[in-house]
C-alpha cells in the first residue's frame, strides 16, 4: 500500500522535477542540459512581458474571484428564502454554468461580445460629440473578469450554500429574538459561521482564474495572462525561462497554500469557539 502511494507520488513529481532541473539549465535549449545557471530566473524576472502577464493574471484572478465571491455569497444567502419556480430556474442556470465546458464559454463569450461590439461601437461613435474620441468597446480585462467570474460565482454559490444549509438556524433566530438588526445578525452570527466556505470559494475561484488558459485564449483580446504567455512561449521555442517561471509560480503557490491552510485552521478554531 505504502509502496503504491510512493509510486503515485513519483508519477506526480517526476515531471515537476524535470521542470525544476531544466530551469537551472545554462544552455538555451530546454531539452539539453548544459551546466548549471540561475540566469533564467533573472531573465524571467527582468522580462517586462512576464511581469506584465503576471500582473494581468493577478488583477483578473483577484477581481473575478472577489466579485464572484460577493455576488455568489449574496445569492447563496438569498436563495434560502426562495422556492418554487425562481429557485428551480436559478438552480438550473448554476448547474449549466458549472457544466458547460470552458471552451464553449470562451467561444460563446467571444462571438457574443464581438457581435455586440459591432453594434455598439458605431452607435457610440455616432452619439459621441467628437467622433474620433468616442470610446471603443473591445475584449480585454473586463471580458476576462466577467467570463472567469461566471464559473467562479457558480462555484461560490454551491460551496457557501452547502455551508449555510448546515448552519445552526437557532442562533439566527435567537439573535433576532434578542432584538439584533438583520445586518447585526448577519455580521455577528451568520458571517463567522460561513466564513470558511467564503474563503474556500474565493481561493478556488482565484486558482481557477489564475490557471485558466482556454477561456482567456478566446476572450483576452490583446491582454496577455500568464498561461497565454506560457503558451506563446512554447510556440516560440521553449527556453528554460518558462521552467523558471513555472518553478517560481510553484514556490509562491506552495507558500500561499501553507498560509491559506493556517488561516483556515485559525478560522475554523474561532468558528468553533
Amino acid at each position, binding site marked *: 500500500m505504502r509502496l503504491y502511494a510512493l509510486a503515485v507520488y513519483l508519477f506526480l513529481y517526476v515531471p515537476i522535477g524535470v521542470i525544476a532541473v531544466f530551469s537551472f539549465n545554462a544552455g538555451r535549449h530546454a531539452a539539453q542540459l548544459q551546466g548549471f545557471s540561475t540566469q533564467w530566473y533573472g531573465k524571467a524576472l527582468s522580462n517586462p512581458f512576464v511581469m506584465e502577464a503576471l500582473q494581468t493574471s493577478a488583477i483578473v484572478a483577484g477581481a473575478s474571484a472577489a466579485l464572484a465571491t460577493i455576488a455568489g455569497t449574496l445569492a447563496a444567502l438569498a436563495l434560502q428564502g426562495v422556492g418554487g419556480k425562481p429557485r428551480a430556474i436559478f438552480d438550473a442556470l448554476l448547474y449549466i454554468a458549472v457544466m458547460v465546458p470552458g471552451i464553449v464559454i470562451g467561444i460563446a463569450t467571444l462571438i457574443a461580445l464581438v457581435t455586440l461590439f459591432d453594434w455598439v461601437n458605431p452607435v457610440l461613435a455616432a452619439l459621441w460629440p467628437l467622433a474620433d474620441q468616442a470610446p471603443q468597446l473591445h*475584449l480585454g480585462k473586463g471580458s476576462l473578469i466577467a467570463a472567469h467570474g461566471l464559473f467562479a460565482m457558480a462555484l461560490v454559490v454551491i460551496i457557501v450554500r452547502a455551508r449555510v444549509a448546515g448552519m445552526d438556524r437557532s442562533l439566527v433566530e435567537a439573535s433576532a429574538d434578542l432584538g439584533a438588526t438583520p445586518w447585526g445578525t448577519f455580521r455577528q452570527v451568520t458571517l463567522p459561521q460561513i466564513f470558511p466556505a467564503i474563503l474556500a470559494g474565493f481561493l478556488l475561484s482565484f486558482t481557477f482564474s489564475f490557471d485558466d488558459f482556454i477561456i482567456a485564449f478566446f476572450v483576452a*483580446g*490583446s491582454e496577455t495572462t500568464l498561461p497565454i504567455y506560457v503558451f506563446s512561449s512554447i510556440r516560440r*521555442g521553449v527556453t528554460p525561462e518558462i521552467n523558471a517561471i513555472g518553478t517560481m509560480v510553484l514556490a509562491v503557490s506552495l507558500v500561499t497554500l501553507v498560509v491559506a491552510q493556517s488561516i483556515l485552521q485559525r478560522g475554523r478554531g474561532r468558528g468553533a469557539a
Partner: protein
Amino acid sequence: MTDRNDFISRERFMAELYRYKKGSVTRRHFLGVTGLGAATAVLGAAMPGLRSAAWAQGAIGDRVALATWPNYHDPANFEAFTAATGAAVEVNVFGSNEEMLAKLQAGGSGWDVFVPTNYTITTYVGEDLIEPLDLAKIPNYDPAAFNQRFAGPGTVDGKVYAVSKNWGTTGFAVNTSNLGDKPKPTTWKEFWDLTMTDFSGRTMVHDYQLTTIGNALKYFGYSFNSIDPKELADAEKLLLDAKPHLFAISSDYQPSMRSGDAWMTICWTGDGKQMNRDMPEIEYVLGKEGGELWSDFYAIPKGAPHMDAAYALINFLLDPAVNAKEALFHGYPTADSRVDALMPPEVLADPILYPAKELLDALEFGAAVTLTDPNRAELMARFKSA
C-alpha cells in the same frame, strides 16, 4: 538561438574582416555580422536609421507587439531595437495565415506589426483589416532596391499596404541518416510514399491548409492552388491515408526534427537552412513537381495601438545592415538588393536559399482564393479531426 547567432567561424570572421578592409562592406555590417557589435547598445546607437529618425528615445512608447512566424527573427536585433528606442518587442508566433486572419477578424488583437504572406494581402484590404502605409515613416524602404516579383503584392490598387520582409520556398526537410541505403527523395510523390512506408510515424506536415493540401495536390501533379472539387477529393484521400503514418501535424517542426523524433517534414527555406547548418544530415529538398514560392511582408493592422512604434520597428528591420543580420540568422533570402550586397558570396550561392532555376520555375505563388475557399478550410479541418 542566441548561441548559434553569436557563433562565427574563424574563416567567416577573416573573410568579413577582409571585406571590411577592402571597403566592400560598411563598418556597421562588419560589426553586426561578426557579433562584435553585439554589445547591443553600441549596435543600436550605430543604427543610422534610428538615430536620424524623428522619434527620440521614449517617444514611441515602451512596447511594440509583433505577430510573426516561427524561427523568423534574430532575437539580438530586437534587443538592439529595445536598447535604441526603449520599446520592448513582444513576439507572437503563428503557424498559418488563417490563424492570423482569424485573430484580426475577432478584433482587439493588440498587434502593431504583423507578417502576412503575399496572397493574403488583398483579403486583408477587402476586409478592412490593414492600414495603408505612410512610406515617409519608413525611410529605409527604397522600392527601387526591391525585386518587384516579391515586393509587388504589397501594393493593392496603387496603395502600399505592406513592405517586403523575405521570400522563400516551401519544400521538405529530410534527415538523410534515416534513409539507410535508399536514395534521397526528390519529389512530393516520394515524400508522401515514403511517409506511408519506411518513414511511417516519422513525418510531420504543417498545421496550415495552404501547404499541406497544396503539397498533397502536387502528388497528383495538380496545381498547388487548386480549388477544383475533384482534385481536392484526391488530395483529401491521400491526406486521410497518410494521417495514421504522421508523427504530428504542426508548423513548429524544428524541435522534433532536431531531437530525432521526426525524420521528415514539410519545411520552409529558412527552417531548412537553420537545421542544415547545425545538422548537415538534415537536407532541404524542393519537390520536382513544384510547390509554393512565397513572399512575406511587414504590415500594420487597422487600429494598431502603437502606431509610431510599429513604423519604427519596420523601419529598423528594413535597415539593410539589420536585415542582413536577420537573413544570416534565419536563412531566408530578402528581395532587397542592398541586403544582397552585404551578404557573403557563399550565402548568395547557397542552393537552399536560391534554388536552381528549373526547380524555382516549377513553383507557384499562393492565390488569394486558396485563403478564403471554404472547401479547402473544411478539408483541412476534416483531415485534422479524422
